[in-house]
């Protein structure tokens, strides 16, 4: 039996295959009908120490759709953090104002520290290049909806696989579902050895390649990521890889690809994916972004004990 009440959502590594499947089933329920008063009287604190429009808005939307209220900030310069307050003190204070905390932070492991500090559930909405588990749940939800299931898919990860936390977490999650994985990146942005070792230890079949054309015909899913300028300490290194992959309708027309290929992207996109793709059947990234709401509704309701 899966119990989510009072759990924290910090890392995809904390979740079993059974728990992941259960969360996706709950998300489907939330998607099918509105539950407007499920969290009436509950308050979500959105603590965004780093900007993120989509994640913040989708948590707000999810809470409001469930009848709850939202407090929070997205500019830490206007909070006590700017005065030197520790993260532990900040979350201890907010704990007294709310029923559940969503935190996004530039420091890796910040959400784990927050979860250890307070007694209300904490959801990690992204910490540095580390984890973004709710993004992973919505990625899985989108893949399941578009492919009819998660078992045995062939998945390509394209772009910044060094700093791209969404790709790391999704790869870990898909390891539960016997996915074959292709990591497509320039050598300087290869997926870190740690992740590869983890996948190896779980028996995952994986391949590392430089070019999409080498593997495009084999893919069920292509998970594109942005090369994130903000993760590079050295701007020169960023310029070396900037725009290295540019997906467009023309590029796909010239590649061997399966008819049922679906392209996901955690967004925002910059130059790695052209708008000419948006009207094709391959593109599911807007659907993916919208999936964030039912998935986060399911998590909020389950963690607060309103849904099991």
């Amino acid at each position, binding site marked *: 039996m899966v119990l989510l009440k009072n759990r924290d959502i910090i890392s995809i590594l904390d979740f079993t295959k059974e728990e992941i499947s259960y969360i996706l089933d709950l998300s489907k329920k939330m998607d099918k009908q509105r539950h407007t008063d499920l969290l009436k009287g509950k308050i979500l604190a959105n603590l965004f120490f780093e900007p993120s429009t989509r994640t913040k808005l989708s948590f707000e939307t999810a809470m409001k759709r469930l009848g709850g209220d939202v407090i929070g900030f997205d500019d830490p310069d206007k909070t006590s953090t700017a005065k030197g307050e520790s*993260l532990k003190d900040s979350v201890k204070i907010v704990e007294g104002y709310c029923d559940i905390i969503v935190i996004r932070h530039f*420091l*890796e492991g910040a959400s*784990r*520290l927050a979860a250890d500090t307070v007694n209300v559930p904490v959801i990690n909405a992204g910490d*540095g290049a580390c*984890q973004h588990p709710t993004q992973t749940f919505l990625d899985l939800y989108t893949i399941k909806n578009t492919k009819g299931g998660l078992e045995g898919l062939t998945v390509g990860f394209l772009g910044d696989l060094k700093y791209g936390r969404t790709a790391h977490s999704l790869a870990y999650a898909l390891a539960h579902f016997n996915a074959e994985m292709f990591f497509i990146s320039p050598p300087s942005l290869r997926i870190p050895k740690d992740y590869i*070792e983890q996948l190896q230890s779980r028996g995952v079949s994986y391949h590392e390649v430089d070019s999409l054309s080498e593997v495009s015909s084999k893919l069920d899913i292509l998970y594109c990521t942005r090369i994130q300028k903000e993760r590079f300490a050295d701007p020169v290194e960023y310029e070396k890889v900037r725009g290295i992959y540019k997906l467009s309708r023309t590029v796909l027309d010239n590649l061997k690809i399966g008819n049922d290929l679906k392209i996901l992207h955690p967004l925002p996109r910059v130059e790695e994916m052209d708008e000419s793709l948006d009207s094709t059947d391959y593109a599911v990234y807007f659907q993916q972004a919208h999936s964030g709401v039912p998935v986060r509704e399911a998590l909020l309701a389950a963690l607060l004990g309103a849904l099991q």
Partner: protein
Amino acid sequence: MKKLEVSAIEEGTVIDQIASKSTFKVANILDIQNIDQVVLVGVNLSSKKLNKKGIIKIGGKQLTQEEVNKIALIAPDATLNIIKNSEVVRKFQVAIPDTLEGIVRCFNPNCVSNHQMIQSKFHVMNKNPIKIRCYYCERHMGGDDIELA
């Protein structure tokens, strides 16, 4: 009679079977410069087990658990000998615990443990060769990455 390469001590602790190259790291852990009793350090001594070993003998000192844990990370083959009245009263090999708290610094500069006033914490994934995972940022570290706090 066995010839001692490093003189015996009457009371204290002998750390034996240290890989030679790690001897001075162990000496740093024990902060031997600030010990006012007898300290004997030997390196490149013959060893059947390690070929060449280091040894540190400290008069009057009992190691703390934190010191033992740190030594285990740097010199996993080391043995500790507790000496009383010139006799070895207890001998045991150091062991790496399953969790390391406050003794290793996370090598990830963006890890929260390097920015907030908290103790670092690691889960030991593998003891030989050593592989640890940061509880906070989930980064993995091997022997070469380990920097003691």
